[in-house]
């Protein structure tokens, strides 16, 4: 049978296009981070943004009432918690000042809605509805109510891509809250995270909480990451095999908060007027210090019940 010459030529053209595109794809894959596609990324984000937004808004409408009730309860609890935290934070600032430690940075939280998840099968990234216009930049930290989510990988003008903990490119310096043992937390497979670089016989136990260590200057210190669920010591290795379960349930996540470092925190900070008018002191805080070593010796005598918070006017404090 004779082949149609036009058809075979057409097939050849397709084959050549295929080979060229395939080489282009493989080269792009090998270049990875160095290949910048900001323009195309911006255009695509612009096209797909309305779809994602409409879907997420409609999703929210259906669950609004039940969420509203739940959130109202949470607000009450959190208000009480914030009141406690404000005092603890103030105490912490005073102590840091006393010991000459560097003051911890303040943070502002940007609430972002997840409008998309990466189509990739295993390495998870989220697309959120805030971008460069709202001040979201590369490497900013993303958190949820329960703990760390990841960091911002790329930002376009209106959207940002968040690299989650469930990604092989995501590594976080972590510290055991109880024993202060440090390691690097990451993900390789399955549903659990791996705490790596922990020397054999280190004091790490099941149930311990891992928080960010603040090293590397990407993630702020003290954000909850995961709980250790299994610890194995293999004498043939120099490090321990530790598995951890993240506090955040990534499959149910709908919103994240992007942390932005700023001069004044939006939460738990005294306004200028408040600072002038009053000082909150937890009275048992300095009880273990001799009076001469107290950060502010002019504080009143410590004869109040432990754990009680006392509201003092500045003038009273100074007079004392």
């Amino acid at each position, binding site marked *: 049978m004779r082949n149609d010459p036009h058809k075979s030529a057409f*097939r050849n053209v*397709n084959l050549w*296009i*295929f080979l060229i*595109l*395939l080489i*282009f*794809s*493989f*080269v*792009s*894959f*090998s*270049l*990875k*981070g160095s*290949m910048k*596609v900001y323009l*195309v*990324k911006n255009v*695509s984000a612009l*096209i*797909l943004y309305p*779809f*994602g937004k409409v*879907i*997420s808004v409609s*999703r929210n409408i259906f669950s609004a009432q039940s969420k509203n009730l739940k959130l109202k309860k949470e607000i009450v609890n959190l208000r009480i918690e914030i009141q406690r935290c404000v005092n603890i934070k103030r105490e912490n600032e005073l102590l840091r000042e006393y010991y000459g430690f560097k003051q911890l940075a303040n943070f502002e939280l940007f609430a972002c809605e*997840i*409008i*998309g*998840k*990466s*189509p*990739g*099968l*295993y*390495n998870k*990234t989220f*697309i959120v509805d805030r971008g460069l216009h709202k001040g979201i930049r590369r490497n900013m930290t993303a958190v949820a109510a329960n703990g760390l989510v990841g960091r911002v*990988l*790329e930002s376009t003008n209106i959207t940002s*891509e968040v*690299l989650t903990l469930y*990604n*092989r*490119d995501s590594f976080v310096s972590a510290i055991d809250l109880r024993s202060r043992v440090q390691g690097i937390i990451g993900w*390789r*497979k*399955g549903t659990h995270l791996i705490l790596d670089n922990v020397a054999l016989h280190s004091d790490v136990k099941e149930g311990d909480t891992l928080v960010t260590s603040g090293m590397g200057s990407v993630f702020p210190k003290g954000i909850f990451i995961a709980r250790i669920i299994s610890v194995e010591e293999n004498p043939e290795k120099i490090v321990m095999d530790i598995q951890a379960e993240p506090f955040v349930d990534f*499959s149910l*996540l*709908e919103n994240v908060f992007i942390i932005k470092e700023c001069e004044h925190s939006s939460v738990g900070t005294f306004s200028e007027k408040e600072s002038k008018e009053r000082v909150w002191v937890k009275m048992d805080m300095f009880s273990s210090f001799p009076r001469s070593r107290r950060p502010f010796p002019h504080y009143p005598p410590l004869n109040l019940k432990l754990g009680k918070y006392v509201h003092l006017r500045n003038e009273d404090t100074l007079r004392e």
Partner: protein
Amino acid sequence: MRLFVITILLFIFVAIQISLSPIISINDIMPNLILVFVFSVAFSYGQKYGLWFGFLSGFLCDIFDSAHFGLNMSLFLIIGFVVGSTKEKFYRDNLIVELSIFAITLFLYEIFYMLLLWQFSPGIYILNIFRYSIPRIIYTSVFAVFVFYLFRKTAVLAA
């Protein structure tokens, strides 16, 4: 007209895959709708359409997964080209045949996806195949049936 409709469908499928995946996923198993689209286009219209729409679909996916830019592009391109080449070799009106080829394609996609992403580590392959790939193939096939019907029954899309 057909080209225009397929291009619009491409954007809709990518948008649904990216935005709706949290809703339609079951136990973190989400259907691969873009692959369904690429397969349908390639199987219905042949090599040329499969080639270009495979490439474009992969490109759009990779834009939203910049850590592995090029991975989906190359895989969808190969799938579009190869499936498009088989257009005249199978009896297209039989849904079971189409669905079977689709399931094999998706399975191979998963294998090569892991291969390119993690290189050689057999333990992980076997674990992931049983835990994620097979449920995903079953789940995606359910969606595929609807999409295949869409391509057959819509006058503009009918090959």
